[in-house]
Structures are given as structure tokens and as C-alpha cells.
């Protein structure tokens, strides 16, 4: 800090931070609740929950769906097929394989967890 000053003498941001800025500025599909005027219609097959939205079904993660990630909604006949699996958007936890369970934290958040 410069003598007598209460402000930082320099604020330098690194390459990692600017990569994060760029990642934020890329257009990403939105996460939405998919609620219409009332309670949404949800269902579950093969351990995955789905929500009815825009004439089809989307996988639910943390209470939200991400329609923009998929080319189209899934048909009921698809999601109800044994062994059907819709790949989750990036960053969404999955069963992981190798004996790892994820998703045990994060379920209470609907937007920012900051204050």
C-alpha cells in the first residue's frame, strides 16, 4: 500500500480470472424452473426426474431444467424406455462411475447462495 493510503497499491488480476470472465460472457443456455401458471408435471424413470415443458420432457437437476441445452424435448416414449439416459449439461453432477456419489450439496440453491 502507498504510504498514508488505505487503498491497495495495485490490483492485478490473473489469466485464470480472465478465462472465467470469458466463460461468463459466452452465451450459455438458461436454467429455468419450467413452472407455468401452476405446479409443473414431473415424472421419473430409471432414477432420473423429468419435467413437462414446451410439449415435452426435460431432465431435472436441482429443481431446474435447461431446455436450451437440448435440441428438442424428449418424448414420453423415450424417457420411459428402459435404460434411457439423457446426458446432463456441463457442470451437472452425475453418478460418476468409479464409486463416487455427487450431488449431496447444492440442492437448496435456486440462484445465488451469496448474501
Amino acid at each position, binding site marked *: 500500500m502507498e504510504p498514508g493510503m488505505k487503498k491497495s497499491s495495485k490490483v492485478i488480476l490473473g489469466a485464470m480470472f480472465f478465462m*472465467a470472465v470469458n466463460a461468463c460472457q459466452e452465451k450459455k443456455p438458461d436454467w429455468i424452473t419450467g413452472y407455468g401458471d401452476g405446479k409443473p408435471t414431473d415424472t421419473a424413470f430409471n432414477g432420473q426426474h423429468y419435467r413437462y415443458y414446451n410439449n415435452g420432457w426435460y431432465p431435472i437437476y436441482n429443481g431446474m431444467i435447461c431446455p436450451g441445452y437440448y435440441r428438442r424435448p424428449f418424448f414420453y416414449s423415450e424417457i420411459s424406455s428402459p435404460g434411457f439416459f439423457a446426458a446432463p449439461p456441463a457442470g451437472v453432477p452425475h453418478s460418476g462411475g468409479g464409486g463416487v456419489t455427487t450431488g449431496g450439496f447444492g440442492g437448496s440453491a435456486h440462484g445465488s447462495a451469496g448474501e
Partner: protein
Amino acid sequence: MNRISITPRPDWEAKIKQQGFVYYEGYYNENAAYTFSAAEVDAIEAATTELFDRCLDVVQHVIDHNLWDEFFIPNEYAELIKWSWDNDNPSFYGRFDLAVSADCSQIKLLEFNADTPTSLLEAAVIQWYWLQDYNSTFDQFNSIHEKLVAHMKVCKPWLYGDTKLFFACVINSEEDFMTVKYLQDCADQAGLANDFLYINELGIQDQFPDAPFCTANGEPVLNLFKLYPYEWMFHESFGPMLSAKRDRTLIIEPPYKAILSNKMLLVYLHKLFPNHPNILPAFYGTAPTGDYVKKPVYGREGNNVSVVKNGTVQEASDGDYGEEGFVYQQYFELPKFDGNSAVIGSWLIGGESAGMGIKETTGLIHGNMSKFCPHYFK
């Protein structure tokens, strides 16, 4: 303390976006700045230091008297909280929201955002760069960045193993993401190995209950900074793992922040220090005489808050909080500047007063509709 109208920099939007403030729309106001005298800043700094010491007294009191039920903290986490307190586990940061009279002769604590504070980037970085453009000879109460990097170096010996510190936040918030990425960048500058994951990607090894938390790919997470509140973690499926894995995964902020980030803190600050000049009378479940503000015990971002003056509700916000009941805090009249009232976000880095950010609103409740304004002092 004063508010002045200023002309925004012609390229301000491009600049702040480049500096990571991508969540500024409807939140940042560069048409105004707040100005202070050096003596006023000294008073805010001194009050911040004093209040933090009193808050730590409350933590000790809660632990000594086992006030877990009073703080709505599940008893099974008492031992974890005590352990983190006795062990003096590292903490990076916290933010007091302070109400300040126009001459700063009265400074009152409104609440302590001790566990998951945001608005860090704009306080540490955005307003600093603004001042370089506006008048770099002016001073600003803001050594947040410098102190963060320095403090993270100090914290290094506390980390588990010679491994990475992971930074985690929720998946669907740009503000949280950039806050955590900024902190990760500070860690990088402090020489700490680091990585990032979303909080819902944090995993456990099914076959190895004694192993640390891990990534979805099974990489051990020995050190974790999480922008995710304990009051939520305690009630989620991995909650019990916090205690079971406490010697395997070090979590920052430390579990004792569950006491400090709780609105019951306000009640016990008043109970323990009833005549303190920086502490407003506050009660659980019972409104004080006179004007007051009603806040949920576990409220966030101004949700479910009511301001009652002369026996009538002047303003109320909605939300999903209030299950644990409400804290009633004596109302403090904030000075108005061109129809705006300002709350001082006073930052602590490693327990030291480090700077401030100002948020203003035209209403009575300071929530997520408040706008951030830069400041300087001469």
C-alpha cells in the same frame, strides 16, 4: 459522508465487464459516488474492528452455553462447530452491513454476512479501477485485494496436505461464480495450488467412508472454499459428512461461521452488550417498542423483511424464509442523499478491517435491488 453526482466513464460498461463485473446490469450505479472524510473512514474502521471482537465473544458464549437450539443449529453439528472454533480454523472473509449517520458519529450493525458474502469483486476491484480513472490521487477505504492475497499466504500452513485448495459455488449464479473465481485468482497470486468445481459436483467415495470429499472423477478434495451456506449444508444429504470428514477435508469458511451468519447473533450481541454504541437492540419473536425491522433468522438478500414504523408496515419484501421465526431489530433511520439511503458493506479479511463497498436504494429495505456505488475519501 456525502453523495455526489458524477459522470460515468464513456467506456464504463466495457471496462467493468472486462474486469469481471458481468452481473452489473441493474445493480451498478456509476452516476453517483459516496465521499467521506478521513476521520469518518477511521470511525468505520474502528467500529468494524470493535464489532468483530464482540461477535467473537458471542461465538464463545454460544459454545460455552450450548445455545444450539436458540440458534436453530442442529445439535449434531455442535461438536464440529466447537472443533473449528477451538482449532482456530482459517477464515478468509466476512462483511458487516453497517448503518451510518451522515457524520458517521453513529455506526450501527445491521447484520453480519459472515459465511457467504458476495459483492466482493465490486468492492475490491471495480471501484478501485474506477478511482484510478476518476482521480488516482484520492484515497479509498479498500485494501481488500492486497489483504486477501497476503492473508491467503498466511493460511497456507493450515491447509491439509500439500495439495490444491478447491473453490466451489452453485452452478447457476454468475455473481457467485465470479466471486469465487476472484478468490481463486487471489489464491493463485498467494502461491496456493487451486482448482474449481461446482458445489453439486463435490462427491464422496462410496466404498471409503473415511476418505476426504472428492471430485466427480474421484480426485481427493483436501481443502475446500465453498460459497454455500452452512445452514443449507446441514440439512442436505452430505451434511453429516461435514463432521465425519473434518480431519480429511478442511472447509473454508469454518463451521463456526454458522453462528456468526445467523440473525440470532444480533439478539445475543444486544443481550451481552446492551448499551454498546454500535449494537441495535434486537429480540427474537418479540417486537421492541417503537419502530423496528423484522428479519427472518435465516434470511438472505433482504427477503421476508418488514419495516414497521409507527405501528404500521412501511415496506415488506417477500420470499421463502421465516420458518425458524423472526428477529426484531430496532429501526435506525438512514440519512437520505437525493432520495437514496446507503448501507456500508464493511469488509473483514482474516479478521482485519479491510475496506468497504456502498450499496444504495430508494426504498427502506436493502436487498438485491440495491445498487453498488463507488466511493473515495480525502
